[in-house]
């Protein structure tokens, strides 16, 4: 492991410990608690997208599909009286089980074809969820009972679960990056044909990456559903759940372990400071951010800092 790798591990461990203490420090600060929960959920999505989009180099727009699926699986199970812990596990499983066959098929496509096929997964799930109204409540959405109804207990609970999930997802990213799988994904990103030539089973590794990326996204959806208490198809299958994580990773640094952390923090901060003041133009504001980011800082904050220059 490189010295930079050890530094990253140290930062993750210290950050993880700090996260364990955060809920205690933030108790009684509902605004900050909400902000940190938002950050954690975005970080989960960003770090898990990074496995497919960053490590493997496949431009996936399917994050929102798994997020929405997880939200619905958990909400339906909880409505039927299943314990929340079990519901989170089931959401993750559902994400992984769907990602297997979908990934195996869709990952045969490359470039633009893969991007749009992955984008369509969310649209399809949204239509099916809206159509299957007996189970999902259709366009009317579903209400989740929550943790006994006390909003403060629920907020603190959501904060702790989402922080823990975020730390686990970043660790998962590190574990993949420094494993045989990560090396294989590196090869695929650089030159898939050559990777296949030296014996990398690209189809298998890509599918593994896709499954591993979908599980935390689905669990994040489940946590979100429990936290907000009400979900409907247009909210949880919103394409923004796919795009925001990509922007966060591009802000921080594509394919790096700490890039998603830095990117998600900057993104949430920008969202609060800037867009709160121009509420009616929040989506447009994100567009301006994207265009400026890609023109000025195409490599993201982290690699630019490391290499000491802003243009790669």
């Amino acid at each position, binding site marked *: 492991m490189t010295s930079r790798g050890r530094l990253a591990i140290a930062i993750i461990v210290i950050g993880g410990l700090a996260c364990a203490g955060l809920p205690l420090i933030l108790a009684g600060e509902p605004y900050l608690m909400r902000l940190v929960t938002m950050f954690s959920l975005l970080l989960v999505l960003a770090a898990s997208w990074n496995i497919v989009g960053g490590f493997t180099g496949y431009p996936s727009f399917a994050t929102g599909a798994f997020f929405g699926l997880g939200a619905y699986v958990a909400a339906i199970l909880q409505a039927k009286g299943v314990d929340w812990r079990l519901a989170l596990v089931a959401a993750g499983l559902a994400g992984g089980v769907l990602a297997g066959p979908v990934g195996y098929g869709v990952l045969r496509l490359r470039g633009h074809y893969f991007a749009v096929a992955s984008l369509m997964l969310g649209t399809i799930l949204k239509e099916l969820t809206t159509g299957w109204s007996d189970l999902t409540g259709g366009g009317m959405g579903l209400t989740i009972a929550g943790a006994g109804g006390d909003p403060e207990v629920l907020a603190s609970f959501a904060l702790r679960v989402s922080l823990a999930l975020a730390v686990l997802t970043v660790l998962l990213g590190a574990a993949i990056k420094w494993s045989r799988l990560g090396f294989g994904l590196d090869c695929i990103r650089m030159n898939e044909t050559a990777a296949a030539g030296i014996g990398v089973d690209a189809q298998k590794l890509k599918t593994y990456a896709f499954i591993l990326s979908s599980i935390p996204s689905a669990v994040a959806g489940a946590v979100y559903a429990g936290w907000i208490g009400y979900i409907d198809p247009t909210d949880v299958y919103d394409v923004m759940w796919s795009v925001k994580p990509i922007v966060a990773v591009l802000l921080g640094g594509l394919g790096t372990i700490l890039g998603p952390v830095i990117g998600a923090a900057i993104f949430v901060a920008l969202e609060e400071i800037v867009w709160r003041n121009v509420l009616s133009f929040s989506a447009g504001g994100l*567009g301006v951010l994207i265009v400026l980011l890609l023109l000025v800082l195409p490599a993201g904050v982290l690699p630019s800092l490391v290499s000491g220059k802003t243009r790669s």
Partner: protein
Amino acid sequence: MQLAQVILNGLLLGGLYAAMAAGFSLVWGVLNIINIAQGSAVVLGSYVAYFAWRYAGLNPLLAVALAGPLLFGAGWVLQRFLIQRVIAAPVLITLVFTFGMDLILNNSMISLFTADYRKIEGVFPTVPLSLGSLTLPVDRLLAAAAGIGAAFALHVYLHKSRLGRAIVAVRMDRQTAELMGVRVEIIYATTFGLGLAMAGVAGCLLAAIFPTSPLNSAYYLHIAFVACVLGGLGSVLGAVAGGLLLGVVESLGALFVGAEYGTTVAAVVLLLMLFTRPQGLLGRAGYE
């Protein structure tokens, strides 16, 4: 007989899809860019037609002459001075970039025009033509004919005019075209301008039939993409075939599966196509 009517409706719808897909396909084929903002550009064209009708009483089919040049200019400038700077970047970057442009354009339209649906009324006769037991609404017939006509005009322009042949040359082999003295950056700007002009034309035709709102843009993008892949990348006539096919598939899907699953039906057809014949109906392999 009901089936024949459904297929006819699908073809009329498909004529509009053809116009939407033609520009999208051209930009994708020549610049290797998926323009996520294409759907919003279509909506912008619809607004041009709507306001021209509202304030000057202009027929939306004639508003094409207004929206086409307007969007061509906007597209030319956007490509020449903005997109050109990321054109060589990986797929992810160009995708996210045009996504950002789409967010700006779409949110601007919602801010300026609100998300309310607006409809052009009283321009076309409401009594449909009849063809045996089949009925043909006049507005749909004219709009579909105009859509296919615009796509054919683009095809002829690409193959007969000097600039059009340069565009085709760049699509086939950028480096060789450059060596022959073609200024690739200008060709890119012209191509992107043509792509948006086609979106504007499609927008005018849609405004003649359907209510206009920025909320439609994602659906239009989706249509353009599916039609383009069905027909085959890199061929305007392929986009026309793909648009017509998609219109029929959607109408049949609405009949047999239910209109609320329109996107799912189209997506299933698209995925089957991608796995079995990725070059599309009329596309040529290796044209990516």
